[in-house]
């Protein structure tokens, strides 16, 4: 009996000690949720930020729609870099936005497998029989929205919509083409990253879809984390701009806005 109690106590003791070790971290951490397309840029910025301030950015990437919904349901994000305005608006409507600034722009392209013989001069060419499977991010994902807008603008959406393969996010759409499982995909220009297995078949003209804007949002917390504020400032600084431009993003200038400020 005593042996049993003692071993139980030992077990509980060690588990508690382990958990203490895991949670009590001496470095400050800021939780950043970023659109899937911003992965490499944010990772590089995070290491620069850590070198400069010692603050660690804990990064979580995914479709902006998924991330916004997680934040809405209480996920511990402090910064959110969304791939479109609508998901930042979504959080603003829930009263979760403390500070907001349009940070990046991007361009939409159609990619095909590198060995594909297909050529496109116009979005309408996607209705050709050679394109049986089109990978798009899902309808709620920014990249998927821009793509659908483009197809609707080209007036071929009704014809191709049953060939659409919904990918979880823009990088999943990219991967379908890399693997040769899809004949074409709509991704951002920044997603190419020099990958030799795909090639850009078409640059989509900006008037075909809503302007691609990536707002950076500081999430409202019950007690604001100073480290989060300095991370926000760093992400909007020159140093971060250099990294974003390196990864092919367009960077916007301008002042941050409070939620009460009017948005265009």
């Amino acid at each position: 009996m005593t042996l049993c109690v003692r071993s139980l106590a030992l077990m509980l003791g060690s588990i508690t000690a382990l958990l203490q070790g895991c949670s009590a971290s001496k470095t400050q951490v800021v939780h950043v949720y970023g659109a899937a397309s911003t992965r490499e840029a944010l990772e590089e910025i995070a290491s620069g930020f850590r070198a400069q301030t010692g603050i660690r950015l804990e990064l979580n990437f995914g479709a902006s729609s998924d991330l916004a919904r997680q934040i809405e349901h209480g996920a511990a994000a402090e910064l959110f870099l969304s791939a479109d305005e609508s998901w930042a608006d979504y959080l603003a409507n829930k009263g979760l936005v403390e500070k907001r600034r349009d940070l990046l722009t991007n361009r939409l392209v159609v990619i095909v497998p590198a060995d594909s013989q297909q050529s496109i001069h116009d979005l309408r060419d996607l209705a050709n029989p050679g394109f049986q499977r089109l990978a798009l991010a899902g309808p709620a994902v920014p990249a998927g929205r821009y793509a659908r807008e483009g197809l609707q603008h080209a007036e071929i959406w009704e014809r191709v919509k049953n060939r659409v393969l919904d990918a979880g996010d823009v990088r999943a759409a990219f991967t379908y083409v890399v693997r040769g499982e899809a004949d074409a995909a709509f991704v951002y220009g920044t997603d190419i990253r020099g990958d030799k297995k795909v090639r850009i078949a078409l640059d989509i003209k900006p008037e075909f879809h809503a302007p691609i804007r990536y707002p950076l949002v500081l999430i409202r917390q019950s007690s604001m984390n100073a480290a989060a504020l300095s991370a926000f400032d760093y992400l909007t600084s020159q140093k971060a701009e250099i990294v974003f431009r390196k990864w092919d993003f367009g960077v916007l200038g301008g002042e941050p806005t409070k939620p009460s400020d009017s948005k265009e």
Partner: protein
Amino acid sequence: MLDVFCLAHAEPFLGLAEEDWRAVGLSLCVAFAGVLLSLPLGLWLGWVLARRSFYGKTIVETAVNLPLVLPPVVTGYLLLILFGRHGWVGGWLHRWTGIEVALTWRAAVLAVGVMGFPLLVRSIRLAFQGLDPRLYQAARSLGAGPVDAFFSVSLPLARSGVLAGMVLAFARALGEFGATLMFAGNQERTRTISLQIYTLNQMPEESYEQRMWALVVASLVLAGGALAISEFLERRGQRRESA
């Protein structure tokens, strides 16, 4: 082929939109096809595992039960590697016949068939194990070939258990998500109930949430109903054997 029948036009009804009813119809079709597809192999393996011992039997048993314990996305990924356009089997198939398996409705059927297979074999094996082996031997000694004896004697006696296995595999097939998502992808032709719920969940508007709930209820009803039928059949089979 199959999809002309299963993706038939639907009407908005009972809080579900057209595409939701299509998802229900597609789920039922795909699950049914998946079980039928896996039945011949399931019957054979159930029989062999019940009646024979052979070198490597454990490996076969493990292989059969693997889809039950592997994460479904892993199973889906393995199927994708095998049957994709550049896969070991799929690449050959695509080059010589032009038939595509991965990321089509065929993949949806194959995925649910594979996921339900362990449950099917388990029930069938139990059913055959519950039979008196002397009945089969008697038929053989009277001159029946092995196949004849199987179909005339063993199978009819085990039919409740086999049916229970089919219904259980069907229920599992209805609820399949991870392997379907990986292997068949999220597209109009493969959007089963679970994929439709997943898609609706990503949309922010409230109207989608209501439809999602309606589908969740439909899913519960279908799964619950199938399970109840399966239990009933299994008990009926056991009662017959002890009679």
